[in-house]
């Protein structure tokens, strides 16, 4: 918020707000926010940690703010990256020009576990594999943003973007009168339009969209039902769908109804027991044949995961240059591949300075943050890396930007990241905002909600 002791312009409107808010009122408001989140039912279950599965994700009332100009540049960078990632996916499941041109090693693509042989040779409607691209960003300087990772499959968290805003508006309506905050509530409608715009070849009418969820035991189930509600589409489980002839049908009280676009929130491996894991009961038998023969669209497309693999990540700037002929606007964090002997050596010698991640990991699990770890933790992690170097990449710890955050003593800086949700269909769309995650522990760099992170409202001001 501050720059050389001066309040940075975007935060000017918030200074008076915090200065005039007594601590009692703040505590009251915080309790009110929690009660609202509870009542809505938005909770977050953490895998593998035990405890309360309906734990609330901590909400920090202090918003994060971008100016219109800052956002304009970010928006160009995000859309550029989303276009490049989709071009890459169409290419590697088609002719593989980027591999032939030697711009990315063949083994990283073709021997990748996320590369689906079952969709080779198929181009989905409008050439889009990843319809919702969640790009995790951190800021390290006024105009410097680094991409931590891309999420091309089914990035979660957008419900928090919408709910955080809703709750802030309810609790502090004055702030929204005084500050020119751009709205984010168009997101569900844009998502519905995006999904409808990628209707399959054989669809000859207004497409029916459905969200496929693994069910209410899934940690993101709230989001699945929330989005279905806001979009006005059906929320279905695998058992609600079946394949008959050339199409997928949904059981309804008025009889079977054809489904044209499935926004799936289950992994590729579970989509269709005839094509992928035969023991899956979450999917729909025969779905992939319908998909490949143009009877239904699956969003994100099966196989999209090969673009957000952490080893492939290194090559995204190359994709931007190769497919778009542009220079990347967003920067990549320098990344060492432990699969390479020389880079592995460097990583093992500098573990105390680095962040080490599993190539296929997500959610902040299985990672080491060197500067925040004990000698024992580092030694234990070193053994894991040595056992299977190819499974790890390492990155420097960045000087992440901080954002004012309410803490017990008042306001203090805490590290934040940002996940905007870029939509790709007939058009490419980005609502002005995203999910800001905050590391609530002082000095911590891990913002994952599974690791004690919280969330904030994210404002983009109109110019």
């Amino acid at each position, binding site marked *: 918020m501050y720059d050389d002791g001066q309040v940075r312009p975007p935060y000017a409107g918030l200074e008076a707000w915090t200065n005039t808010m007594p601590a009692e009122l703040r505590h009251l408001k915080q309790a009110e926010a929690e009660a609202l989140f509870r009542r809505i039912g938005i909770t977050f279950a953490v895998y593998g940690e035990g405890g309360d599965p309906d734990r609330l994700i901590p909400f920090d009332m202090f918003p994060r703010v971008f100016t219109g100009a800052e956002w304009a540049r970010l928006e160009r960078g995000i859309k550029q990256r989303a276009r490049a990632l989709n071009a890459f996916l169409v290419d590697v499941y088609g002719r593989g020009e980027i591999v032939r041109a030697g711009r990315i090693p063949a083994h990283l693509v073709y021997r990748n576990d996320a590369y689906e042989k*079952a969709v080779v040779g198929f181009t989905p409607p409008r050439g889009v594999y990843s319809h919702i691209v969640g790009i995790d960003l951190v800021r390290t300087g006024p105009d410097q943003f680094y991409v931590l990772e891309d999420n091309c499959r089914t990035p979660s968290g957008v419900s928090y973007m919408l709910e955080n805003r809703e709750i802030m508006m309810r609790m502090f309506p004055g702030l929204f009168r005084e500050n020119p905050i751009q709205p984010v509530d168009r997101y569900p409608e844009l998502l519905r339009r995006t999904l409808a715009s990628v209707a399959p070849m054989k669809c000859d009418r207004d497409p029916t969209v459905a969200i496929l969820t693994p069910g209410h035991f899934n940690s993101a189930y709230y989001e699945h039902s929330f989005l279905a509600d806001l979009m006005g589409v059906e929320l279905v489980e695998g058992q609600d769908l*079946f*394949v008959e002839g050339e199409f997928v049908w949904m059981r309804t009280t008025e009889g079977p109804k054809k489904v044209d676009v499935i926004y799936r929130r289950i992994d590729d491996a579970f989509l269709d027991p005839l094509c992928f894991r035969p023991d899956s009961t979450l999917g729909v038998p025969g779905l992939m044949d319908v998909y*490949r*023969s143009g009877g239904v669209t699956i969003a994100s497309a099966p196989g999209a995961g090969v673009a957000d693999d952490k080893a492939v990540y290194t090559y995204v700037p190359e994709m931007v240059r190769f497919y778009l002929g542009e220079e990347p606007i967003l920067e990549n964090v320098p990344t060492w591949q432990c699969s390479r002997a020389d880079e592995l050596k460097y990583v093992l010698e500098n573990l105390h300075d680095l962040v080490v991640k599993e190539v296929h990991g997500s959610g902040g699990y299985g990672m080491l943050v060197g500067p925040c770890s004990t000698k024992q933790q580092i030694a234990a992690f070193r053994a894991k890396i040595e056992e299977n170097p190819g499974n790890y990449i390492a990155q420097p710890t960045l000087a992440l930007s901080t954002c004012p955050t309410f803490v017990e003593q008042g306001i203090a800086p805490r590290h934040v990241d940002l996940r905007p949700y870029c939509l790709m269909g007939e058009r490419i769309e980005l609502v002005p905002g995203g999910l800001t995650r905050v590391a609530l522990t002082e000095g911590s760099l891990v913002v994952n909600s599974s690791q004690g992170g919280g969330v904030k409202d994210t404002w983009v001001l109109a110019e």
Partner: protein
Amino acid sequence: MILTVTHRTLYRYDAPVRGVVQSHRLTPAAFEGQQPRDWRVTVSGSVIGGGFRDGAGDWVQAHTVQGPVSEIEVLVEGVIETVDTAGVLRGHKEVVAPPVYLRKTAPTRPDGALRALAQKAVAGAEDPLDQAHRLMAGVADAIAYRPGQTDAGTTAAEALALGAGVCQDHAHALIACACSLGLPARYVSGYLMVGEGDGPNEAAHAWAEIWIEGLSAWVGFDAANRCCPNAQYIRLGSGFDAQDAAPIRGTARGTGEENLDVTVAIAAVQQ
């Protein structure tokens, strides 16, 4: 050679099922080694689903049957002209990059014994094609053709430890050995016209293909018969392993126990 095929699969359910969904790779592709003349797949009581040519060049056809139903017959009847190309797959349109087939699946994951077998077999080989031939011989020597010892879930490593198996086990073992040496390899399902003699008698057959970079081609190797596919072979489709390349994949909605009855007859037409 002109071959006729009659392949009948009868599914019987001891209690009627509510519906059946199947995905077939039962239609042979055309390439230098084979030209289908007349080919028909019928499924009793089915609605024809979507069909498409996949990245590996195979025609995939879906069928659904609405229940209640307690018996389904899948009948393949065809006439195909075949030519001996010494196992080399030429003129077959496909787009999957060969390195994709270096992926290991549960039945093709090489263990120490398979790796050792591969290393020993190729000692002194001059080039990848020579290596592939020696691997085939090595697998044939190590795994005797003996039906009834293994089942559909047996892995290559288990078959080698047992020293016995059928064509599926030979193919899995050959794929595991080839991949362990960095040679892309895959599973092929098809038919074999069994001639006179005492060789393996499996009309519904399977073998392996190994990618030979120097030829820029996939070459078939049938370890069960110690030969490369010739004009007696009909190629249906490929995959990582037996399950991935299965000619029929299907599932029934319902609790009825499934019983299978398969008959395959391949004959040469006298000219």
